[in-house]
């Protein structure tokens, strides 16, 4: 690709930045937004930027959203750029989602299960009517409280698992034999290669674009890689993060992060080696992000087609298609780079077209 270096644009760029800053601030007679307001009142935007920016930091995401004028992909881009400036201290112990502080936990497969259906702060049953009282700054009364009976909110899959009706969690080779677990792959350190193992696929999906994953997930329901999914469970809440710093030599808890987990349960007809049983797709996302976690779980299951001996013909079952295109920072970079000067490329295309037209005219005249 040929790009031509263009000089002379510096002043135009400086002035464009100055106007951008003014435009971002908007009408100066309107009070500026504090990042704490964004963090507290636009939490779902903050969650999305943390998930797609692949960095859990609410303050930083709020700052990025304000700087990007609410453009969430631009904000995720800012967060991704920032994270490259920080050293990585270590990796955490895998988070224990079964032990998380539950705010919401629902299952579409069992009505009565230990812990019950906990709706939490959800939009599911709202009427999607614009609330003009809310717009007027009406302060809501505190949410009702009830005694929590302290029932352990176990995982729904364990119920199916106890009957052998569902496949086990995706195990690493060593785990079953009590060997030390091998380090999971990390696509931020080693470039994506195909076929990608499930750990890499899940990492890629967890930071993937919500809109892309939603469309892919939707396509699997509409017949492109037919699957018949049930929501085994969705849970939203706070999980603590443990690390073991070498200087201490024992695990310490460094704080809580909000996570959304989705367990999808899918039918599976069985194969030569496996009896008919339910199979699973898994979604785990930073923040309160149900749509994303569900989409991730559906796409995770679709990407397992080959390992389960299913014919993989749909886009959502194609690893290269999904994993190469789900990252919105890469996607926006490549799409938007078309705005940059392509003067030389285009000049050559122009000359080719002119020549072809001239040749065609000559032929026609002859």
């Amino acid at each position, binding site marked *: 690709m040929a790009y031509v270096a263009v000089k002379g644009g510096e002043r135009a760029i400086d002035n464009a930045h100055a106007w951008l800053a003014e435009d971002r601030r908007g009408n100066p007679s309107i009070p500026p937004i504090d990042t704490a307001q964004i963090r507290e009142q636009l939490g779902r935007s903050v969650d999305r930027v943390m998930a797609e920016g692949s960095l859990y930091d609410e303050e930083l995401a709020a700052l990025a959203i304000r700087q990007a004028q609410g453009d969430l992909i631009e904000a995720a881009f800012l967060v991704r750029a920032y994270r490259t400036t920080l*050293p*990585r*201290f*270590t990796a955490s112990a895998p988070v224990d989602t079964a032990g998380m502080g539950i705010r919401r936990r629902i299952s579409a497969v069992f009505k009565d299960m230990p812990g019950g259906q906990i709706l939490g702060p959800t939009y599911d049953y709202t009427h999607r009517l614009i609330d003009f009282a809310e717009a007027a700054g009406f302060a809501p009364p505190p949410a009702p409280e009830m005694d929590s009976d302290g029932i352990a909110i176990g995982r729904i899959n364990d119920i199916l698992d106890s009957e052998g009706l569902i496949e086990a969690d995706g195990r690493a080779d060593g785990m079953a034999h009590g060997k030390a677990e091998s380090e999971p792959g990390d696509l931020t*350190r080693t470039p994506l290669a195909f076929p990608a193992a499930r750990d890499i696929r899940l990492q890629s999906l967890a930071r993937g674009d919500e809109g892309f994953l939603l469309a892919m997930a939707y396509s699997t329901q509409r017949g492109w890689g037919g699957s018949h999914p049930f929501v085994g469970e969705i849970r939203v809440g706070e999980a603590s993060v443990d690390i073991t710093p*070498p*200087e201490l030599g024992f695990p310490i808890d460094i704080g809580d992060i909000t996570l959304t987990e989705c367990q999808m349960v899918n039918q599976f007809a069985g194969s030569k080696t496996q009896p008919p049983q339910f199979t699973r797709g898994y979604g785990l996302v930073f923040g309160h992000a149900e749509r994303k976690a569900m989409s991730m779980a559906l796409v995770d299951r679709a990407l397992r087609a080959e390992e389960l001996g299913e014919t993989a013909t749909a886009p959502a079952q194609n690893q290269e298609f999904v994993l190469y295109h789900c990252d919105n920072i890469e996607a926006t970079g490549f799409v938007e780079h078309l705005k940059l000067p392509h003067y030389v490329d285009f000049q050559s295309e122009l000359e080719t077209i002119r020549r072809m037209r001239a040749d065609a005219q000559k032929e026609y005249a002859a």
Partner: protein
Amino acid sequence: MSVSLPGFADPVLSAQSSFRAILDAMSRPGTVHTAGHGLTPPAPLGQAAAACLLTLVDAETTLCLDDALETTRDWIGFHCAAPRSPAATAGFLMCHELPDLAALDAGSDDAPQDGATVVLQVASLCAGQRLTLSGPGLPSPATVAINGLPADFAERWAANHALFPRGVDLILCAGDALLALPRTVRITHAHKEA
């Protein structure tokens, strides 16, 4: 792990200036640079060697530590946090004596950058065995005098140099001084050329 001595006072600026010193040393083999001023590493680790470790080694690189430096293990572990690795697979080696270069990871033709970097602490970078260096970064051959390399160093180095683009790189440190011998440099005994 017991740690009682600090690392860089200003991790960002000190790591940047040390990186610059190492980069300059690698670009112009044989030239002596300083690094690690103000550092108080545990003995027998010198300032320049300590600065190299603090600058180049972290939780995402692997490190092999020479037995003679075992007393510095906690300090290095705390400030660099690098997972320990056997010499054959280490990305970085901190040594008191020249290791067998042929036994180290020289990288691959696809990824020559994976070749190990050896930080070797020596007695002096201005007196001792005289060696003539030539190759990229050296407009004309230069002579260095180093106390702390084995007598057959030039022969051992030739085998490493011949692996190019694979090979290991060497950073020699004495006190707060360092010089680098990247795999590209040709080394001969100075007296043989005289």
